[in-house]
């Protein structure tokens, strides 16, 4: 991997990256009108889409539910959307299971409160198949431009991928010993030194388990299980614990969190095999009270402006060419090879396997 070497100067550069990201965000949001006009001339002239824009503006409001809790980018993007269309965005945040039950019960009771839901591909499948709470995906100008691999069978307008990798404490792990791949985690020298998100329950640890079990195999996963991993379910606090020196390795870590830990003795590593990832995107909820505003928002999230914003924060964009000009370290994460993700249809089977292996 190209990225492993380039990651070595991460710690020193994160401040610059953070500042850069902020500046980039502001500039990108500010130039939205220009890029929107330049980016979709063919569709923008489409009379149908113009009608959607007019109707969305008349609706005036958009209610967004998001399962990505606490991300400042949500609010910033919402503000940029308001600036572009004059449509105010009401954002309600809660964890995935809470949001899902809220939407389900609201719809069952005939209270159609929300328009758009920002969630993962796996959750979308459940919304679609089990709860039947989402509408088919509208075709919008930008939806036709996203990479083919992010055009899904489920009705979710892909927005970005969240990559997961390895985090080490640089005070405890010598450069020569640094793990470079997922396979290195199985080395007996790490026994008792790894803090891991719990793979026995839906979450980051399970994502790692699913990907590596499928791609490397059961023997590998069993080897890792014999490492006496310490399990946790609090991702951000676990990063701090590792930084404080409780453990040498924390995995899998959300790679985009790197900038939040600037100044701490930690290093984020992109494994050679690639990063397990979660694909995030928007769904349109059934009987959305502001359907046109919702379509505009779905389109907006796939526009180059928002895609560049996410790329600038390290997330994987679904439009190609969005990482141009990014600092090398951010680019490395944003372009990291996608290793694998979970499959909702196999969740019960794989959770059972994980519980069996990790006891």
């Amino acid at each position, binding site marked *: 991997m190209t990225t492993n070497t380039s990651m070595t100067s991460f710690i020193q550069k994160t401040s610059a990256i953070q500042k850069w990201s902020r500046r980039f965000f502001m500039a990108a949001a500010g130039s939205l009108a220009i890029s929107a006009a330049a980016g979709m001339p063919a569709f923008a002239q489409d009379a149908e889409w113009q009608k959607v824009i007019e109707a969305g503006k008349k609706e005036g409001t958009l*209610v967004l539910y998001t399962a990505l*809790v*606490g*991300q*400042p980018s949500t609010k910033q993007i919402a503000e940029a959307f308001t600036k572009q269309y004059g449509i105010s965005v*009401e*954002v*309600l*945040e*809660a*964890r*995935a*299971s*809470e949001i*899902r*039950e*809220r939407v*389900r*019960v*609201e*719809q*069952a*009771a*005939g*209270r159609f*409160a929300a328009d758009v839901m920002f969630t993962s591909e796996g959750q979308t499948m*459940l919304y679609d198949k*089990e*709860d039947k709470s989402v509408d088919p995906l509208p075709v919008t100008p930008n939806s036709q431009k996203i990479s083919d691999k992010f055009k899904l069978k489920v009705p979710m307008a892909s927005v970005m991928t969240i990559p997961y990798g390895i985090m080490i404490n640089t005070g405890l792990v010598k450069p020569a010993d640094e793990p470079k791949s997922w396979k290195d985690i199985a080395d007996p020298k790490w026994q008792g030194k790894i803090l891991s998100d*719990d793979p026995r*329950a*839906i*979450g980051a640890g399970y994502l790692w388990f699913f990907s590596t079990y499928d791609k490397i195999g059961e023997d590998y996963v069993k080897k890792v299980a014999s490492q006496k991993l*310490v*399990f*946790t*379910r*609090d*991702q*951000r*606090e676990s*990063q*701090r*614990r590792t*930084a*404080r*020196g*409780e*453990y040498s390795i924390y995995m899998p870590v959300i790679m985009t*969190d790197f900038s*939040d*830990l600037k*100044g*701490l003795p930690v290093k984020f590593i992109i494994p050679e095999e690639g990063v397990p990832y979660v694909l995030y995107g928007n769904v349109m909820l059934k009987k959305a009270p502001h359907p046109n505003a919702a379509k505009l928002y779905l389109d907006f999230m796939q526009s180059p402006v928002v895609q560049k914003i996410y790329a600038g924060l390290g997330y994987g964009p679904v439009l190609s060419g969005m990482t141009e000009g990014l600092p090398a370290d951010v680019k490395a994460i944003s372009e990291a090879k996608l290793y694998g993700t979970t499959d*909702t249809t196999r*969740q*019960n089977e794989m*959770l059972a396997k994980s519980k069996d292996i990790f006891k």
Partner: protein
Amino acid sequence: MTIIHNRPLDDIAETAPTLGGNALTRAFSGGSLWRLIGMLVLILILGFLTIYPLAMLLYGSLHSTPPGMAGEFNLNGYRSIMTTQNLIVLANTIGISLAKTIPSLTIAVFLAWIVARTDTPFRGTLEVLITLPFFIPPILTAMAWGMLANPQVGVINMVWRWATGATDPLVNIYSYGGVIWHMCQYSIPFLFLFMVDAFRAMDPSLEESSRMCGASRWTTFRKITLLLMLPVLTSSFMLSFIKGIETFESALFFGLPAGIKVITTDIYESINHRATPDYQYATSLSFAIMGLMFLLVIWQWWMLRGKSFQTVTGKGFRPSVMELGPWRWVTFAFCVLFFFITVVLPIGQLMLGSFFRFFGFYTYDMLTLEHYRAVFANSEFWRAVRNTMVLGLLGATATMALGAIVAYISVRTRWRGRNLIDSMAWLPWMMPGMVLGVGFLWAFAMLPGPIPIYGTIWALLLAYIALGTPVSVRVMTGAYHQLSYDLEECSRVHGATWAQTMWRIMVALAWPAFAVGWVLTFFGIMRELSASILLYSVGSETLAVVLMKLWANGNAEQVSVIGLMMMLLVIVFRWVQLGFIKSRISKL
């Protein structure tokens, strides 16, 4: 020496004179029709707040799908919880809860006695300080103790290793002991708050008589003070034990990494970490636990049945304290030690952490005020403060008013249905918060369209009232149990109306308990997340929701700042409250 037994409650209530007066007076004093209507209204209110959401959950436990989805009624949920593994987890949970309740109660009783019944120096200050841990959000104390007592880099262990040269850690927060200790930190101040005014309100003449008859201080404490406190003690035990079964955070933060499983983490997992949330399993398990808890409550009723614990009589009530002589410095030292361990250590960590860029990394170049700036500049935070204050003030007042009425009827009358309302008020306490939150969501969303509660701030308020009522009823029950019927009779004989009697006697004397209950409820509302996260709407975010968002995004330092502000608020509230109580008592 035995407890005095006054006339049985039933005799007194039965023979109480029927008063005239207006309709409201009659409704609660004797007029049977109005009394019936009053009771019905109360039953309706409690039914809506407690039975209705629980009925939705019961439906969830008996139906293959949650409300609103096609499915069938079956007992699969109850079948699925009948596993050997669950039995082990249950035994584990009960063991942990007992292991924290017994020492918590012992220490809390001792502290309450020291503060309320002895001449230990600086009691007023100590009273405020030792209750502080209860008001810190659990994630903050978890964070603080994770730094203080983790086996590798914990401050306590590092000092221990430095001082003794030992290689093994002295304490390990990720263990049974750690889970229990973290729970105790909430339990002790809660129980202390719950009991201290009962100790304070106790007529000291019984203790004085005991001492004059030659009993030692210890015997007097054991045979008089403790026994008189039996209703409060059993209530406290019950509240604490049941909450121990339902506690979630301690097990999540410190139990999970050590492989310790409890019922609540199991329920949490069944809702949040399965491919599809299994509400049938979660609700069935909750009802099974609720059934077990109910047996405990029945045991408490049976134990207290027919006994009287009145210590506040009309005869020369004079709150006074026991003089401990030189021992008062020992009791003082005990309180200070408790304060140091439970407040100075964790809150000191939080305060320190709030001034550095990263919690736990205390170097000069990391000093900053940016977390304070970020919190103060966060408009959502201020909106949440406003919402929480409004909800807290309204919610705590309404909850205490409801609790005072329910407790009055259940303790001081023998109206038909009094046991029913007492039980109804208890119910929310016996259901784990995260499940009850789902119950409120289902209940409010499924209300008929014209009832505009769902999605408004009222949904939160109603949920908070339901969640707080068990504590408010218990607090007021304890207080009413101690008031002699002579006081009411005397007031009535002297021509006071029922309302005057209520205001001048019952309210005046039960006021300290009311104030404590109010503070407990207010801060309960401030911390409540399980129902809030499911019921809040855009614009009605509460402080707990904002804290959760900040925590989820890794802003532990900003969470600390807010936690410290909550501490300040608590201190102000407690000073005002204690000052108020003192002025009331001095006027008696």
